[in-house]
């Protein structure tokens, strides 16, 4: 174990990142890590060399691959492309808008890749902004999530937390909002991504206040606002006075589960191509498309989770391959399991437990 550090220093890269507790998308540092993360796939060592690795070196090599497979890149789905292009178009449109900027809402069931899509949009936007204005003194994107049972103060604190503004327990909301807006304007924030917007219930008083606070932010900040949340159109986000205003200002992009059709296969193929397993037979997963669709209900989040889990399992157990049998032993999220037919999965889950 002592030698692990040396192996890392020898060039296999850090096995574990994110030891810093603040590394989340919802902090500036975490967001910047995400922006600069270029998940370059580790080169697969030829079989002979892999076998020749000593214990420590192999552990470092495997760790690196594990790390890689936990992320496994982003699949450019049609929804993601639509969000990125629509978002870009809106930011260009809003560049000179004085008020009433147009925004984007991404709504759909859990596990359809909403967060990935808006984060990818943020990444694209930030990359373009950094190309135009290199230098550290810009924060083009703010990413925040609406906390559950949010109050306006909590939302303002989320924004402050992203920027790294210290929030004292006794700080009043006006001060927080002033600081957030001041810094955001100074740092040229041009896209604000708000995730988990379904936590904002317009029917409740605090939810309505959160909506008003968001609205206030959108008036104060010359930025394009992108919201993402679960089944927003059925949750009353577009009803009532506030809802109608939101409906009038935001373009809705639905995120839906994939049908068992052309794109589903291409998504599976992309994920399979990204795998770095020594014994994996290319085309195995592609041939399992029907099964995977049944397991995941066409949710890309579940699919990614399933395949990544299987890949890590394959590395840890040393089988270095993903098979249907292995997939069946893996648990995935509840939503996907609910939607999948009670069949082999349920049986195997029971056995796994």
């Amino acid at each position: 174990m002592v030698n692990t550090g040396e192996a890392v220093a020898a060039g296999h890269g850090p096995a574990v990142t994110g030891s810093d507790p603040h590394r989340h998308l919802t902090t500036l540092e975490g967001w910047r890590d995400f922006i600069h993360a270029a998940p370059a796939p580790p080169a697969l060592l030829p079989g002979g060399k892999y076998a020749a690795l000593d214990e420590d070196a192999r552990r470092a090599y495997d760790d690196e691959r594990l790390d890689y497979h936990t992320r496994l890149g982003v699949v450019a789905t049609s929804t993601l492309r639509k969000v990125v292009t629509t978002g870009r178009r809106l930011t260009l449109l809003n560049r000179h808008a004085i008020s009433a900027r147009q925004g984007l809402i991404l709504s759909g069931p859990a596990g359809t890749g909403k967060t990935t899509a808006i984060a990818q949009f943020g990444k694209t936007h930030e990359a373009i902004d950094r190309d135009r204005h290199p230098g550290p003194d810009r924060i083009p994107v703010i990413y925040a999530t609406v906390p559950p049972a949010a109050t306006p103060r909590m939302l303002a604190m989320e924004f402050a937390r992203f920027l790294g503004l210290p929030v004292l327990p006794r700080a009043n909301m006006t001060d927080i909002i002033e600081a957030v807006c001041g810094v955001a304007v100074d740092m040229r924030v041009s896209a604000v991504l708000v995730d988990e917007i379904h936590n904002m219930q317009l029917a409740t008083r605090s939810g309505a206040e959160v909506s008003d606070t968001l609205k206030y932010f959108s008036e104060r900040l010359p930025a394009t606002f992108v919201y993402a949340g679960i089944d927003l159109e059925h949750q009353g986000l577009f009803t009532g006075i506030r809802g109608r205003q939101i409906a009038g200002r935001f373009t809705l992009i639905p995120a839906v589960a994939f049908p068992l059709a052309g794109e589903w296969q291409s998504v599976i193929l992309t994920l399979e191509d990204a795998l770095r397993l020594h014994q994996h037979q290319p085309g195995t997963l592609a041939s399992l498309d029907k099964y995977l669709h049944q397991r995941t209900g066409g949710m890309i989040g579940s699919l990614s989770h399933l395949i990544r889990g299987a890949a890590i399992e394959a590395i840890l157990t040393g089988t270095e391959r993903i098979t249907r049998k292995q997939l069946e032993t893996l648990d995935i999220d509840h939503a996907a399991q609910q939607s999948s037919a009670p069949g082999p999965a349920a049986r195997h889950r029971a056995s796994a437990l």
Partner: protein
Amino acid sequence: MTAAAVRPLPIRPRPAAGDTPATYIRRLARANHLRPAYLNRYLRDDATGQPSIDMLAALAARPASSLMHAFSQEAPTRRRRYFTGSRRQELFEAIRRDAGTSHRSVRALADDYGLHRRVIRQALAAQPPRPRKPRGPSRPRPSRLDPYTVIIDAILDEDLRDPRRPARTIRQILDHLITEHNATGISYAMVARYAVSKRSLRPRPHKPAAASPDTAEIRPAHQAAWSPGHQAIEQHDLLQLRELLDVGNDAEDETQDGLTLLRHAVHREHTAHVEHGGPLHVGMTVLLLARGADPHHLRDGTSIETEAEILGHWLAAEVIRAWKPANTEQDPGERAGRIQ
């Protein structure tokens, strides 16, 4: 809270040589739109009551050693900006403008301008030149005529409404004011200026064809409507007078209080001279004498000649004196009759 839990601020100005923890905290806070007191409270080390340098370093995302280094440096000698005269005024105005629009504190302004807080306070205290007092609507100066304008208006109005009545002259109005209303301290010119300004606003009544006899009775004597002859004299209108005499007006036209045309003419000529300061005319007197007006007429025992002398109308007096002998010889009978 410990330094490990402190995340760097989004905007982090460098510490400058000569900074103290307090000034640096202030600059950090301002750059991040926070109140300095807020950041002070956040950084306060409960043990010492002082801001924690470790936390400050974490906020600034700099090693504490570099902060300590900066804090130990002497501030570079900065040349204070010092302006005099109009540049100082401009600077003060700029400071006042900033203070007015941004509601920034004296300390913040002093930081911005690189000036001492005392100078900022001076600028805020210095009064800008007072704007010019706006001119209100001009009010006429009070006049001694003021109490009588209502009466004059009434007279003018009356004249206007009755076209048959000849418009009253300024003199008549003046006399009326003096005798009936005990007006003092007013002059012909004052009345004239006022009446003319009023009259110019309304059409002047035409000259009446003839004064109706009944109107004379209902008015006071001095206000009696002048006969056309007297009217012409009052208006100092020689040509009109000649016209009237030509068409057969009596040269001996006499008002109820014994004012003959000749006597009236002497008076009028003299007033004209006094009022306008022009040369003394004697045209109407001569014309009336030529047309047979009686130079010997007496009123209250006073001859016209005497009256002219008293008034100071020496020219008329001389003309009448020169006229008398000739006239007496021509028409002794009439003269005798008159005397009787």
